[in-house]
């Protein structure tokens, strides 16, 4: 078996590929670990671009169709960049019974875009999740990786408005 990941830096000079190569080597460039490697890639790059998928397919010696097929089959993998802030609304049964639909309406109204989309300015992504498993606190949303329970439509819209009011950080 030949270790595929090159020792040469990626032609783009992007150092993130070094991290990805490390993850691939950890799994001995084994195609059976494709999902693990896609997780790693999304963790490093934020989303899975086509070029990135081709890079992975070469490194794992898999047909691009297989890599693309797996990446698009699973909800967790994103093919587009997400916004600065992410609002993940749980649409599980408990949240549904407790009125997640009202929250959905309020947030969509506030952002001017639907769930599954990102606002035009790239500030907020609205994502719906199947169930985040915090049903005891329904209705639940995950705001930038922090779970917020027992939400109301008003409170949700307020949180989103707060994000919208933030000034864009200017990189120094």
């Amino acid at each position, binding site marked *: 078996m030949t270790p595929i990941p090159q020792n040469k830096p990626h032609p783009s000079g992007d150092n993130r590929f070094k991290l990805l190569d490390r993850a691939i080597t950890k799994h001995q460039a084994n*195609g*059976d*670990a*494709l*999902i*693990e490697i*896609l*997780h790693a890639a999304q963790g490093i790059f934020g989303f899975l671009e086509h070029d990135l998928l081709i890079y992975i397919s070469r490194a794992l010696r898999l047909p691009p169709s*297989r890599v693309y*097929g*797996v990446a698009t*089959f*699973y*909800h*967790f*993998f994103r093919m587009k960049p997400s916004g600065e802030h992410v609002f993940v609304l749980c*649409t*599980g*049964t*408990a*949240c*549904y*019974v*407790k009125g997640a639909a009202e929250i959905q309406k309020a947030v969509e109204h506030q952002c001017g875009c639907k769930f599954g989309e990102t606002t035009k300015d790239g500030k907020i992504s609205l994502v719906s*999740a*199947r*169930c*985040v*498993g*915090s*049903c*005891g*606190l*329904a209705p*639940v949303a995950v705001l930038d990786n*922090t*779970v*917020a*329970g027992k939400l109301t439509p008003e409170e949700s819209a307020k949180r989103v408005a707060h994000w919208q009011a933030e000034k864009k950080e200017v990189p120094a």
Partner: protein
Amino acid sequence: MTIEDLRELAEKERDRQSQFTHRVLYCSSAGCVSSGCDAVKESLKKTLDETGLSKKCEMVGTGCLGLCGEGPLVLVLPDPTLYQHVDAETARRIVVEHVAEGKKVADHALDLNSPFFSSQKKIVLENMGRINAESIEEYIAADGYEALGRALTELQPEEVIAEIRKSGLRGRGGAGYPTGLKWDIVRKGKSDQKYVVCNADEGDPGAFMDRSVLEGDPHRVLEGMAIAGYAVGASQGYIYVRAEYPLAIDRLRLAIKQAEKLGLLGNRILESQFNFRIDLRIGAGAFVCGEETALLRSVMGRRGRPRPRPPYPSEKGLWDKPTLINNVETFANICPIINNGGEWFAGIGTPKSAGTKVFALAGNIRNTGLVEVPMGIPLRKIIFDIGGGTPEGTEFKAAQTGGPSGGCIPKEHLDLPVDYEALATVGSIMGSGGMIVMDSTASMVDVAKYFMEFCMDESCGKCIPCRVGTKHIYLLLEKIKNGEGTEEDFTLLQELCTMVKETSLCGLGQSAPNPVLSTIRFFRDEYTRLLKESPAFAANGGNGHAHATAGKEA
């Protein structure tokens, strides 16, 4: 490490714990984390340091304490006192008043004799609120890894399986296949390599039992898997866990590392000839991967698409080798069975459904959270005694079990005993344990539509009845809900449901029509009312009359 070393370690840890007069356990499961248990932890620590009590009183982050809706929760031992809605200030008072002066903080204390606690029987959840979820020493002090040690030193693999068969344990993933029988088939398979897989892809919306077990007591699952590996002759295990459960993943990673360090996983476990490794596989958000053949494909890095059975995974599973797949809760039941004997377990619950079942209570109910009850307990007891019934001013309408594969159980059937067979008689299933209570405001047609949308979205697309059938059922339900349905639509809906149920390839499609069929069975009048409102009905005058009477008969 030998089994004697293990017992010595347990003794040492118990000695260490006995130095403290009090143990303050705060719930560190996802539910309480989102209710703000970090602030509680900070405050406890700060107050203990300030008052100089940290030598007398130990603070511990423990697994789910049950009443998720009232969190953050804090338990003080000895003389168990459980506090609800704890914030930083209450945490300070718990230390200053309860620990230092022995005065309970009455306004936050819960009554531990209330039916919520007294009606439960804890086997799977016994360590929740007893041990630190991140400490292997505390798990060992609570007789952890004792069952594995006993199995390896005293029992032959056949004897382990005999014990499991005697216990009558059935798969807790929902289908209820006898666990001992499954183990036996894998054991008898001839192969140089076998696998043990733990299904922790808890995809049912509204279910969080497995998450809580993995977060609160990860070692118990690892130990159960290792015993299974020994019994069936496997040396490699995989846990397939959802990416949506980051805390459970972290705790499992830590637990595997700890167990490997002590020689409780890896090569020559407890200095025997038995080798067993466990690796994690992280799911990526596909409901169908809860189906075992789809799960196996996902473990191998492919699209999660099911295949026909037979051959069953117990004959041809991962890489075509015999593979044992059990649910998290099934593995969590193994250690107590080995420790206490199969007969003890068979004595709990009903003759055909032995043991206990963990349910996740949620929806329109007063006490939301995690409960464990003996099998065969009436549904009414779970919902009204333990769950406290629906909130004031609302009336119970239906309980939904089994998620998108299950059904809605109406008021008339509240006295139904909760076991695998009884739930099937009313068109629902035990499922993995999600129990969502709905009150009078819920529209059952809407509920059916909600679940069908879920199944339609999650259908993998491999077989036509599921891919196309769920879509059309959904469209028909939408039409009826919008008041545009005709009688033909209603007939077609029922025919389609039967067709999808009978001809789909895997469990997802076969059970997808269940919520529709069960709501039609018990809440037919809601459908007929919507049909009557439709303009098509008005245009078609007398046609609907026969229909309305048919509804009454049901």
